[in-house]
């Protein structure tokens, strides 16, 4: 009851022109940051921090949080429209969103994305408001062995990304994992595979790799494979998915929202892993998994719901423990400190108005996001209806400025082009590119936590801790799921045949 009371007073402190306008501005900036590849939610928040100096602590925080909550959604827009994930977590939206766009139905994909993102975001916020304390405690039990097990579990998703060609998917993953080891060894400071290039000391930038592997490779490949004369897109429809259609996939949306939120709580896991796992589970529990990757609305919804759900999740350890669960929350913690707010249990006691004001602002921000998202979809559809000969060079130019903006460095631009050519070659010969990204994301998590766990104990540490053991078992089940499900299906039909009709 206490919480509800606080929450209501939080809402009442926001119902004035200034806070509402601030939230609206934050959401708009968030969508913009999300849409622009190269600008991550973290950078967006960081860019707004100086603007927030002069504001009251509550206004400053609702601005930053509104931006953060909308940025993850914004990334899915370009992922769906032009196969360019605007934020890392939006990669998963390209799997089914972009095929839908190519089939002339970007309206359905974009609509499903904004609606499921809103539901995911609201779920995450509800969990944040009501369960943050027990969840934060649970997140702390994640030590190095558990993170390693999580990474291994994440890697097993390749078996569902492979679309039939396991060997090539594994090779692609291993390329990603190996590329990930380029740079300074986090434990000894030794430079691995850098060939004397200073910029490689931190390894390949993740965002340039992302833009290259997805956006660039798609453009090169689609130009290569279509006749100039035939390069007229079939009619693009701006039609949104009907509410009935959305209701039909409610289970996937709710399941992905919950998964996204829970994974978001674990510091260091983040929105990207959340989206991958939610997508995998959506596919695994779907009645027609073969449609995933060909433009399944469930796939788009799973990704959108999980990425937005993870926002609320990531705020859990931030506000209750002062531990940032993602790059963006790391900046938020700095901003909180700047305004004299130290996150932690005391913040809930001493500054309850601010904490619950932030919570309330999240609810409002998601409604603004839904509204702006639906409105904005028509603009995106106009943009992608432009002739490909204008669109393709423009996307390449965005890739250049986007990768430059990551670290103000031309090296990132070069590596973006390099990854673009790599992705083009891989896809040309039927190697999927998503596993490369999965390897790049999870390689670091796997390696550092594996070695850290070994420093803490011996090899048995992975199997003697319950959470770690459970996740390793899950990983094995997930890896062999296609085989298991086949077996189950066979048994099932076997049984069906036995039943006399």
């Amino acid at each position, binding site marked *: 009851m206490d919480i509800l009371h606080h929450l209501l007073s939080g809402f009442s402190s926001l119902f004035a022109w200034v806070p509402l306008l601030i939230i609206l501005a934050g959401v708009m900036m968030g969508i913009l940051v999300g849409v622009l590849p190269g600008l991550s939610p973290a950078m967006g928040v960081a860019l707004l921090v100086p603007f927030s100096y002069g504001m009251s602590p509550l206004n400053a925080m609702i601005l930053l949080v509104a931006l953060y909550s909308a940025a993850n959604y914004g990334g899915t827009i370009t992922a769906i429209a032009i196969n360019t994930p605007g934020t890392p977590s939006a990669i998963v939206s390209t799997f089914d969103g972009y095929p839908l766009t190519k089939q002339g139905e970007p309206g359905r994909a974009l609509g499903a994305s904004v609606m499921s993102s809103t539901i995911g975001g609201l779920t995450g916020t509800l969990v944040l408001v009501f369960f943050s304390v027990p969840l934060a405690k649970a997140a702390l039990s994640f030590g190095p062995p558990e993170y390693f097990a999580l990474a291994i579990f994440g890697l097993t998703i390749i078996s569902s990304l492979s679309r039939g060609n396991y060997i090539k998917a594994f090779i692609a993953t291993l390329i990603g994992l190996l590329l990930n080891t380029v740079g300074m060894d986090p434990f000894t400071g030794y430079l691995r595979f850098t060939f004397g290039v200073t910029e490689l000391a931190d390894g390949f930038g993740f965002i340039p790799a992302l833009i290259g592997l997805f956006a660039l490779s798609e453009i090169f490949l689609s130009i290569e494979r279509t006749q100039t004369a035939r390069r007229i897109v079939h009619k693009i429809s701006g039609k949104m998915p009907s509410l009935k259609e959305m209701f039909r996939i409610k289970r996937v949306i709710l399941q992905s929202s919950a998964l996204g939120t829970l994974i978001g709580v674990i510091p260091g896991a983040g929105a990207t892993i959340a989206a991958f796992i939610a997508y995998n589970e959506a596919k695994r529990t779907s009645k027609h998994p073969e449609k995933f990757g060909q433009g399944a609305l469930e796939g788009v919804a799973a990704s959108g719901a999980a990425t937005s759900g993870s926002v609320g999740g990531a705020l859990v350890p931030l506000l209750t423990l002062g531990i940032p669960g993602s790059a963006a929350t790391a900046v938020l913690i700095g901003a909180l400190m700047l305004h004299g707010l130290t996150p*932690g249990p005391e913040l809930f006691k001493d500054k309850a108005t601010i904490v619950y004001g932030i919570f309330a602002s999240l609810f409002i921000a998601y409604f603004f996001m839904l509204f702006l998202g639906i409105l904005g979809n028509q603009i995106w559809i106009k943009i992608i209806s432009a002739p490909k000969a*204008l669109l393709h060079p423009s996307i390449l130019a965005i890739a250049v400025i986007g990768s430059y903006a990551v670290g103000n460095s031309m090296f990132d631009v070069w590596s973006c082009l390099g990854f673009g050519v790599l992705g083009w070659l891989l896809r040309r010969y039927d190697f999927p590119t998503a596993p490369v990204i999965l390897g790049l994301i999870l390689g670091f998590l796997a390696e550092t936590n594996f070695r850290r766990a070994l420093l803490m104990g011996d090899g048995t540490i992975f199997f003697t801790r319950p959470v770690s053991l459970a996740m390793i078992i899950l990983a094995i089940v997930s890896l062999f799921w296609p085989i298991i499900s086949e077996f189950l299906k066979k048994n099932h039909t076997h049984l069906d045949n036995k039943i006399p009709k």
Partner: protein
Amino acid sequence: MFSRVSYILLFLIAASTLAANYPDKPITFIVHSKPGSAIDITTRRLTQIASKYTDATLLVENKTGASGIVAMREVLSKKADGYTVLAVTKSFISTVLMTKSGIHMDDFYFLACLVIDPEVLITNRKAPVRTLEQIIRDAKEKQGKQKWLGPLVGGVDHLMALKTWEQLGIRGEWIPFEGGSDALAALMGRHGTVYVGNPVDVKGRPDLMIAAVSAERRLPDFPRNPTFLEKGFGLKHEVLWRGYALKQGTDPRAVSYLTDLIYKVSRDSSWLQFVRATSAQPVFLAHEAFSEMVQKDQLDALKYLRLAGILADTTRIHGANSTRNGFISLIVFLLLLLTLYLFKREWFSADFIIPLFLIILSFFLYGMTIDFPSGKLSKTAGPAAMPRLWIYGLIIFNVWLLIKNISLKNRPRKEDSVNKLQAVGLAGLMFAYIIVIQYLGYYISTFLFLTGGSYLLDYRKTWLILLNSVGFTVLSYFIFYKILQVPLPTGLWG
């Protein structure tokens, strides 16, 4: 037209050097870490307060990478004219010593140190081991297996731990994390015993406590937490510092202007309030005192990095080795291709060439991992362990793919590549675009690229092409440069 522009530019450059009215253009503060980090926030706050005392525009630019090497290189690549200031922290010493980048601390002129943050040992209030005495007893019982958590190996906090172990006569296991907050989370989850950090780390975290402070007397914010000195250990001057530096050889006028400006900030009440809010100490150490501290810390770091076996006295040089191996691998690959072409023409396709290439690349990379150190720190799994595991995987799966392709009778037909030339052309144009940006700057080259790109894709509606190119360039100017303040490359015009 262009020559006139360049004449004007030349004139402007000449005029600006003649005027020598420092500062007559924006002063950029280079920060080595991401936006939102401690040094970034400190610097942004500094420039904000400093703008009260100067008319010059002060900018903050993040040049992240290689633990500060990228930022240092950026400052050293600029003219020593005082328009590029480097935000420095103690961690730069470890970076400079550990990476063989050719950069030295002496390359910088240390302007002033503004913040001093004492090093502290932090423990979990709910754990059985909390106080300094308990840490010492527990460490002796565990015989070097006590877990100490913190960021990066060789960093400021690790050096503090090494020093503490020496002073306390104990040994521990340093478990490095990606950043301080990850290590703090691990301490809260009781995955380790001691965290090495600064007082700010316990703020708002009631589960954590400071076991010992490295300072002459107890900290005003933490009157109940003892110093090492009280417990009979001499660790009293271990601090993390933050300050500002210029490239060595900067014009004395700029030096005195900036020193004066920073001094004014250091006396500003809102600055003092800001620093104290992070439980650190606001100070003003001018050039001499600052340089002396840097010198002392560098000698210290050298000693402990050697002691821990992080810095070896002799380094093996293996650059030549990998170049030679690279050549050999390339020749082997080409020979294999030739053999295929001559004797097994039907296998001369991507189905065989790609796996072959990846296998030979894997062997070459494996050769490189032989040189990776196994060091005292790495114990069971060194820097080579994971890369090797992935390399084994690559070899196994590629061999599998080869065998599968050999046994495959009917290869699936590839999708047509009807427009290969256009696609390669566009990729080439992008290549040229990225090169040209560095000379013509972002705007002109982007306009040229977009126009050329559309033309290359057989689009002939000139007006639409021009509209798109101009529109894109103008829009990116507003969004990226004006709103998001990305310093776009200006090429030769800058």
